């Protein structure tokens, strides 16, 4: 890894479905502004968020070992300024969580997603992330 990459904002995608991750990867395959990480194993992701700080963590909800909200709770615990987004086909669950006062998740994106909206959402969240006091 070179220095230039190090300075880019890190974004983590978590989904137990590799198909989803691959599709996302394709969306961003020539996108160089951010440093994307894709993890399909929810247990690995659960560990990763405790070791590394990401600007944004985007997680699926329903996964074999952890629910997306559980991982995002962990993210909040370790780096509260990390923006937490739920990417799910199960919109009701997400909307329940977003309305809770502790704001475990900042936003949710429904599957199937719209590429432009996704990108716009990421840009917005990066700004919010930057504006968060260190």
């Amino acid at each position, binding site marked *: 890894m070179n220095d230039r990459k190090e300075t880019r904002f890190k974004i983590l995608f978590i989904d137990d*479905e590799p*198909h*989803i991750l*691959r*599709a*996302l990867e*394709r*969306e961003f*395959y*020539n996108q160089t502004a951010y440093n994307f990480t894709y993890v399909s194993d929810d247990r690995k992701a659960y560990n990763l968020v405790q070791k590394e700080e990401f600007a944004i963590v985007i997680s699926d*909800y*329903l*996964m*074999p*070992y952890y629910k997306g909200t559980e991982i995002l709770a962990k993210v909040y615990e370790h780096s509260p300024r990390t923006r937490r987004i739920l990417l*799910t*086909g*199960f*919109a*009701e*669950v997400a909307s329940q969580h977003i309305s809770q006062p502790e704001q475990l998740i900042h936003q949710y994106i*429904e*599957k*199937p*997603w719209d*590429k432009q909206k996704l990108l716009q959402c990421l840009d917005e969240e990066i700004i919010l992330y930057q504006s968060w006091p260190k």
Partner: protein
Amino acid sequence: MKKANSANPTTDQLEIERLRALEKATREELNQLKQSNLQAQQYLDIAGVAMVALDTNQKVVMINQEGCRMLGYPEEEILGTNWFENFLITEDIPAVKNLYHRLMTQQSPIVEYYENPIRTKTGTRLVEWHNSILLDLQKKPIGILSSGLDISERAMAQKALEQANKAEQHISSKYSATFDLAPIGIARVSPEGKFLESNPYWGIITGYSKEEILDLTFQDLTHPDDLEQDLEFVRQLLAGEIQSYTMEKRYFHKKGYIVWVKLIVSLQRKENRDPDFFISIITDITEKKRIEGELAYSEERLRTLLASSQDAIVTIDKDSQVVFWNDGATNIFGYTASEIIGKPLTKIIPKNFRGGHIKGVATVISTGKSRLAGVPLDLVGLRKDQTQVPVELSLSRWELRGQVYFSGIMRDISARKEAEAETKRLTHAIDQLHEIVFITDLKGEIIYSNSAFSKTPEILPKELFAQGAILSACNNYEDPIHQNICEALLQIGTWQGELPLHCHNGDYKYFEVTISLQESDNLESSTLVFVALEITMRRLEQARQIQSQKMESLGTLAGGVAHEINNPIGYVSSNLHSLTGYLKAFGELEDMRSELEEGVRLGENGALQALTKIDKKKKMINYDYIQRDIKLLLADMLDGVDRIKDIVNNLRDFSHVDTHKLEKMDVNLSLQKAVKVAWHSLKFKCAIKEEFSLVPLVECFPQEINQVFLNLIINAMHAIEEKGTITLKTSQIADKIQIQVIDDGVGIKATNIPRLFEPFFTTKPVGKGTGLGLSVSYKIIKDHHGTVEVTSEYGRGCSFTIVLPLKQHLKNPDQGKR
């Protein structure tokens, strides 16, 4: 008494003669006196004739023993009393007294003989009197001497005798038409009893002709029980003790039956007083005897009836005073006869009816007409304890010696009134029912039907009776339902099931029908009670309920399904965008291919330049990546589309309304399908363990059974809070299949187990289930003639066991049409 002879005075000679004569006369007179004294004594002592002497003052101066016996008083009580006043009957007294006075004053000659009645101590006797006047020396009457013979019996026999004498006259004039035509039987009988002659009417009564009777004696014809008395009478008649006799006796008719006759017999004597023949007169009194017997019987019966009747029998006079009151009346009204006889009837009439009663009695007495007589009336009576009692009154009015009486028979109809009210209540209730209720005889004739019946009279299953009386038509039915009904009625007296009714518009109506046989003494008069409830709506509702419950269970899976569908759609749609990008890049490369061709034509330099440009482009579009990725991308998309297709197919399979055809189904496959539908909700929570045996196909309605499996799997899933295992087991037990769904979840509290299959019973939080899953599952399995059982240990999971028969023997061929 002899009178003294007077002498004739003539000469001296004659004087001597006269003296001698006088002496002689005196002697003679003395002798005569002695003789007459003796005679008088004899007279007095002779029994059988009463002798009475009266003085001019009508007083008794002498009475003999027989006189005392006849009057019934001792001599001393009779002597000195006024004969006429004490012993004559009142009406006779003035006339006799007058006559006696004229007799004593010689104004009237003596009546030698007469009959008149006298009063004795024991009653009136008819006496035949012979009288002589007692004279003193101056020939002045000093009294009367009468001898009397009691002829009461003789007088009574007199009329008969007269008749007999008449008959005798008839007999003596043989050709008299009267003898032959007389409507009485007349016969001449020898002193020994032999019939000598008879008239035709005798023949009519006894059956014997003139000729036949000649060989017989009256003893032959007489009933043995009457013979003795008859013979006694005959003896008395022959002995001269009686002049005739009359008796009612029985003859044997020639044909053997008994004829009652009234018999009058008198005796005809010869010149020398020897018995000559009897004259016997008979009249047929059989009918009279019969009527007398019946009368006596009916009187006895009436008496018994009056006493023992449960009905009150009460008679009142014109003033409404009770004059008769039987035990039945006491039982009903509480008053004893002694308490109420002589009291007004109004005691047993409630106040508000008393006026009407009094008015009614008055009207009947004045007009002689009653609108109440002859018609039974329902009235209210008042008991002694002042409670009211409904009675039925039959009233009659009668008269006796100019007095009007009313007799009423009152029956306590409390029980009947109650029964009537009960019947009315029941009938009303039955008429309110939605259920059609009707009763027929065994031939299908309707005896009773309620109002619901009139809306659907075609519910009467005419085919049941098409063969005649239902119970004798068993084994003749083509339709298995009818056969089944008939057999059930014969064996257990009742049948219950569903009967479809084909409507004119081609639809079916469904009825749940119960038929029960009400057996009576003989099968002929037994009846069938039908109770039918239309369940068409219920059936439709049931089908709807099953369907809606299915949708509901699918609904609980909706989250999982949505997620499961949105995932592949998400990446397929994303990939399509990416693919578009890839194609655009390829398009640009394609464009460069013509530049390359141009460069090649220009020469080496040009080609190189173009290739460099292409390389640069390839780098820019990340050509290697695209080329590597494009196969994967397409594979991902196909995979995604397949998954969507799968999910949709599964759902469609489940949400389909059942085709309602019995099909052979593989239960193992069905369980796997159910798991697949629920998979999206199950997959991160429950491990599925399949312990399948190789089982035969089961005949069933597949959609319904799938639904049951899905319900049980969803239930098991909900019972598992975090992670757990659902075990699915199948096995064959004889001609049945056993399916078990076992989970290791929270289990079911023992108290809830009995309520598990109750509709709307749920322990799940609001929104997690309506509580219909298990009740619908239970219903489906029951319809398949299977069973569902549940065992559970709270906190340790639970196990549902379904047993299904391999084949469905549907009694109701229509069941599949639901």
